[in-house]
């Protein structure tokens, strides 16, 4: 590490330590925690709702604000998971399995504190790994050509799908539904308008945010109404907040947090495999390490720690490909890219060369956000307990209202709201019949990137044989296939039917 980097880190920190920056970070963390605590609402919706606010801020502040929301949801979503048994967003699905039994034993406060510690430590290390990895990756990425980028995107989508589905055909169908949604609009290469059925609205393609928000969040409204009110659990057990962790607990969570964070960051880097997938892999990995541990599934303290650590490590991980490659690491990162794009800043390898200051500022902002998470995490436990306990019906209704705001707010277009609603219904039926929605959302986001890189790559290599014989491209494509088959095989073996749809 040379002096140059140190000065830049100091500069980044000084940008983030300005009072107005701190104010936006704090606001983001608090808002994120509330959104996270509301069942069904995850970082994507939280950030989408606030996007119109973010585009009015400077690029630095917009990034701070949006990433702070993501950081806040990281802890917020585990509150209802532990106390009520409803994951605030899909990445907290497993938290229910280990956290709820603890709460039932009257140890809800302890579980929350373990979760908070895991969140804070993993976010802190995630930020450090972000700054250590993003610039080398971007420098490497500059040398990647179209076929490699194509292969990376395929790898991301296919791997993420293999992890969440048990039927290869339904997984394939889900990916294709997403890609199909990405087709209408202007052909990026020839400039020709295609598949719009003469509808002017589609000329610039399906708008990303309404579709993503619809697929991932509006779906929740329909899913929760499907089961009716009786299916929505509610908690009557009182929670006694706990303010510190016993020494035995601190010892018990140290290794899980380290394991979880490392896994989380690296899983997060894979485009598409977000927090939910990371928490799943981290949990499985720890199960293989701690074979003697008897509490799995019955309220395991290391379990809660590793789930939260890997899920939150992934938040920093997701930002790495977003910034370094211009490939959104998760649906919520689309919002970050959209916020930057409205200011004429396009994430990708060029950004790292032209605006490195922005990266260091993000680094500083994320550090401040971790501190804010710690402070507000403590303070937010009582109000979040209250939010998690208000009538589940109320939160479902509120979800509908907020999702509509999120879809409308960016372009002030009612057509976007209609599209969001339609996407929500589509996602509901996909979920109902076991077609994984998260891969579809991902494929939709990455579809045009996939196509342009394929076509440009084929021009470059003058045909398929040249394209497929590039070592990195071929390796990635084969790995993707193996990961897909392996993932489905594993899902059959474990038979654990957990719908880890990526980020909601």
């Amino acid at each position, binding site marked *: 590490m040379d002096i140059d980097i140190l000065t830049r880190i100091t500069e980044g920190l000084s940008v983030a330590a300005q009072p107005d920056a701190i104010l936006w970070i704090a606001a983001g963390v608090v808002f994120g925690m509330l959104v996270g605590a509301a069942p069904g609402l995850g970082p994507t919706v939280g950030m989408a709702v606030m996007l119109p606010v973010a585009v009015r801020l400077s690029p630095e502040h917009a990034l701070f604000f949006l990433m702070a929301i993501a950081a806040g949801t990281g802890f917020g979503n585990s509150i209802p998971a532990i106390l009520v048994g409803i994951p605030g967003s899909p990445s907290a699905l497993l938290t229910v399995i280990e956290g709820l039994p603890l709460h039932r034993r009257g140890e809800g406060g302890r579980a929350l504190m373990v979760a908070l510690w895991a969140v804070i430590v993993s976010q802190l290390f995630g930020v450090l790994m972000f700054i250590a990895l993003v610039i080398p990756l971007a420098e490497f990425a500059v040398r990647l050509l179209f076929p490699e980028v194509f292969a990376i995107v395929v790898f991301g989508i296919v791997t993420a799908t293999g992890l969440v589905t048990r039927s290869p055909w339904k997984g394939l169908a889900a990916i294709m539904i997403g890609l199909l949604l990405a087709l209408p609009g202007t052909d990026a290469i020839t400039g020709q308008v295609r*598949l719009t059925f003469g509808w002017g609205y589609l000329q610039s393609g399906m708008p990303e945010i309404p579709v993503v928000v619809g697929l991932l969040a509006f779906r929740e409204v*329909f899913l929760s109404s499907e089961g009716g009110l009786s299916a929505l659990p509610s908690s009557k057990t009182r929670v006694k907040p706990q303010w510190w962790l016993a020494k035995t607990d601190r010892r018990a969570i140290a290794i899980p947090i380290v394991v979880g964070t490392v896994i989380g960051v690296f899983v997060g880097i894979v485009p598409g495999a977000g927090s939910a997938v990371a928490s799943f892999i981290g949990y499985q990995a720890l199960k293989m390490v701690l074979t003697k541990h008897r509490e799995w599934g019955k309220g395991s303290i290391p379990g809660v720690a590793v789930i939260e650590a890997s899920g939150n490590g992934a938040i920093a991980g997701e930002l790495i490909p977003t910034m370094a490659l211009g490939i959104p690491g998760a649906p919520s990162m689309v919002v970050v890219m959209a916020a930057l794009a409205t200011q004429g800043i396009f994430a990708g390898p060029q950004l790292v060369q032209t605006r490195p200051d922005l990266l260091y500022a993000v680094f500083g902002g994320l550090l401040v956000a971790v501190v804010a998470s710690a402070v507000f995490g403590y303070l937010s436990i009582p109000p979040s307990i209250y939010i998690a306990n208000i009538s589940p019906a109320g939160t479902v209704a509120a979800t509908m209202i907020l999702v509509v705001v999120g879809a409308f707010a960016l372009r002030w277009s009612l057509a976007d709201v209609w599209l969001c609603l339609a996407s929500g219904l589509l996602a509901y039926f996909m979920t109902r019949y*076991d077609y994984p929605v998260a891969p579809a959302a991902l494929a939709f986001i990455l579809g045009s990137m996939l196509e342009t890189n394929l076509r440009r790559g084929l021009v470059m290599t003058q045909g398929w044989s040249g394209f497929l014989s590039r070592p990195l491209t071929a390796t990635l494509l084969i790995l993707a296939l193996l990961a897909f088959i392996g993932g489905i095989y594993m899902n059959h073996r474990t038979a654990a039917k957990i719908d880890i749809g990526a980020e909601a």
Partner: protein
Amino acid sequence: MGADKGPNTTGRSKAERWDRLRDAYVSGKAVWALLLLLLGSVALTTALSMRVGQAHDPLGGRFFPVMVSASLTVAALAVLLSPLVRLLLGRDPAMGEGSVASAGTGPDVDPADEPEGLLRKPLGRVAAMAAVAIAYVALLDVIGYIPATILGMAGALWVLQVRGLRALFLGPVVMSVSLYLIFTNLLFVRLP
């Protein structure tokens, strides 16, 4: 689909397995797979009839749409045929994946089932919620944000079996007015 019967009979009796096959096809899953098949093939024909200029691009603007819609068609077809194939292989002919997957998202209900007692059926509740959502979005433009939101929220609560005037009225009014004030005055975001 020219298959007639499975040669191998292990486990269940033949009649029983034919019953299971019929169940697999008379279900929402089959209807959905059929819809996807339809979507795929319509997209495929549209993509094939697309006229594209052959610029200096070996693949052209048509390849990708054709590939995507063809893959969707194949995948939907595979899901649709899977019960038949499973029957021919002498296995339990359930739609899609083995028996665990069918324990997924609640019981299958025919959407056309008796309209009365709509809210007693899962799919009926979803239909009601969808109707509320559609009405809400449609009303936004007509009667303005606050009134539409009050109605929309009250409707959603009603679908979720919340009864009682106080909960149905007070909650939505407080929520919509405060949301409106927060967004327009504090965050300078325009609402519909």
